[in-house]
């Protein structure tokens, strides 16, 4: 509508803005976001669960002052749950109320108006107003199926939605699109080609230490180092069914801090094992001797 939106900052400035909001990552993350913004292509972020994919979207939406519109994916996702659906109950009620008074075609026009249209995330992304384009986050697309990918591809090509009873809505400007996937299944080629690709995995020990210190202020240096060391060892060992991600590191650090611990000892490990292990087998595995081994190694 004639309002100028914020221009894309330079690569260096973008790095500063992202870092200021507490997101610690490798330089390629900034490059990927930068290219997604400047080339106008969606960004596909794949990686292990709990490694900051969704967090990245939140940070980027903040940096760009973009409304975050989130679509959480699951199997069987279709147009009804992602684009629009009619509010049937409201329509039924309206018809009942008007039955006595008006003609049927008058009712029809009213009942298929925008008031009775439930706007789902994709349509909301198209209709978003304001100076800055919204950020459309399509979270965990690997949980949806191939049919949804087809639907999404079509949408990403045009950013327009046709509701037969009303008309066609076209986005005034392209939303920023970020798609995340936990790699539980292979995504189709069509979607991959459409997007730029970023792979997020567990950080190095130094990076994770930095993250812990930023996100859990007040934690002692010694404890933080011990935590990070244990996490690195746990991830290297392939025995865990659900490997802990960065989120687990932060939860664990916060828990230990809340319990007032300054040091990793057996008691604290046993008490807080639930922060690290997210399944019954892993919990049993940790509690059955592995903790003691790790403790010995870390404290030596």
């Amino acid at each position, binding site marked *: 509508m004639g309002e100028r939106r914020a221009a894309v900052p330079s690569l260096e400035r973008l790095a500063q803005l992202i870092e200021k909001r507490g997101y610690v990552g490798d330089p390629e993350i900034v490059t990927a976001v930068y290219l997604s913004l400047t080339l106008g*292509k969606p960004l596909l972020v794949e990686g292990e669960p709990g490694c900051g994919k969704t967090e990245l979207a939140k940070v980027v939406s903040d940096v760009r002052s973009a409304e975050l519109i989130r679509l959480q994916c699951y199997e069987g996702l279709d147009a009804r749950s992602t684009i629009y659906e009619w509010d049937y109950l409201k329509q*039924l009620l309206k018809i009942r109320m008007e039955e006595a008074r008006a003609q049927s075609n008058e009712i029809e026009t009213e009942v298929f108006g925008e008031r009775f249209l439930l706007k789902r995330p994709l349509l909301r992304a198209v209709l978003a107003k304001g100076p800055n384009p919204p950020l459309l986050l399509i979270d965990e697309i690997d949980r949806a199926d191939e049919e949804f990918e087809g639907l999404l591809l079509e949408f990403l090509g045009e950013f327009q939605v046709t509701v037969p009873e009303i008309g066609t809505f076209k986005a005034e400007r392209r939303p920023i699109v970020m798609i995340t996937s936990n790699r539980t*299944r292979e995504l189709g080629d069509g979607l*991959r*080609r459409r997007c730029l*690709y*970023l792979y997020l995995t567990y950080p190095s020990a130094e990076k994770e230490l930095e993250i812990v210190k930023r996100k859990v202020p007040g934690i002692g240096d010694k404890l933080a180092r011990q935590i990070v060391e244990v996490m690195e060892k746990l991830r290297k060992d392939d025995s865990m069914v659900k490997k802990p991600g960065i989120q687990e590191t932060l939860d664990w650090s916060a828990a230990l801090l809340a319990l007032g611990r300054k040091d990793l000892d057996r008691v604290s490990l046993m008490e807080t094992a639930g922060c690290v292990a997210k399944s019954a087998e892993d919990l049993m595995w940790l509690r059955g001797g592995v903790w003691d081994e790790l403790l010995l190694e870390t404290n030596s």
Partner: protein
Amino acid sequence: MISQEGRRYAERLETKLVEFCRLLRDAKLSVTPSETIDAVRAVGQAGFSDEQVFHDALRICVVKRSEDFETFEKEFRSYWQSGRKRAITADWASKGRRSRRRRADESRRASLEKGVATRAVSGSSSGGTNETRRAALGVFSPLERTQRKSFDGLGTKEVPSVRRALKRMTRRLATNRGRRSIASRGGRIDLGRTFRSALGRGELLTVERENRIVSRIRLVVLCDISGSMDGHSDRLVKILHQSANRIPASKVFVFSTRLSEIGDHLKGRSLRSAASEVSRNVEIWSSGTRIGSALERLLDGYSRYLGSHTVLLIISDGWELGELDLLTDRMREVRRRVSKVVWVNPLADSPGFEPAAAGMKAALPNIDFLGGLDIFTRPREFERVFGKAIGPGPAWGAGRTTNRQGRSGAQLLPSAKPGSFDLNPTIRLASLLCEQDDS
């Protein structure tokens, strides 16, 4: 204003980028002109003064799978950092004009002649298995004999029953009901369509229903062609050919000491022509059996074919030469990924068969159905036994129930019982909905 020199530099950089993308394509990375354009634009935006940024920008645009990162690194280092430039041969220019299939055939033939497997680098995960690495170097393990097979005189007698058996199996196994719905006679009330039809009439007269669609199954065939399976190769070729051509979205692999995808050799060809393609291009017949490492290679390089709507059909006699631990472990992993595992063992045709071979025993806990090769020649019997083993399938009336004109039967709203109050249609619909929720 860009200077003359600046413009020349930009052109040279663009040429180099395009050449680099071509090299990546030769290294089996899938890089289309679209990605090349992105790469050029990205470098234009992000700049090329910082090597890390340059590297990242290229990778972000051009590599679409984390499995391809290693190949990209290698090519990047060799092209941009070693200072040597690979010559663009005249070959490339002419290659662009040839059809895809012929190019694939030629490159396969050329490398077969050199004795190096072409599949060595495609889709390999970081590291790849020992076999693929060795194969890339042109070295074969002592247990592996390169032996081709000829299929002259292959009859087509059993083909129809093979086809029938395969179709019945895949249809029977398609029991997963997805969350998508389709118009049908039975099932949940579809408010949207009920409503739409009512508006046309101005009155709620009929109730439209919907049911969940039974999703189709994908078939992945893993066929043992080692020495012990030699006697059955004719029948195997027929099974593989029918799988590739008659079952949509199927993938066909053969293995002995190595795994090889042969879908391309079979699809779109007659049995005879497919058989001669296979005999020309597959050279791992009659070697030793390594089921475990075949499964590992399948999981590493082709995991995109193994999904929750996939059925894995393994045809092998279970005489495993490799480590049993690997076999057990990989069977467990594969069973976790796919919907069902069906194992066909030629030895099971003989009466009194018991799964005694070590490999067979190790794999047994993760198999949903074990049968003999005869299931492909006696499809009706097979279906009976199969049905019992797999369990009840979707109820009749699931899926499409449209009549010949393509319209589904709409059900009249049950009218009010005589003697009761005349409940108007809206309330009748509401009560139907409540009944449905209760059931």
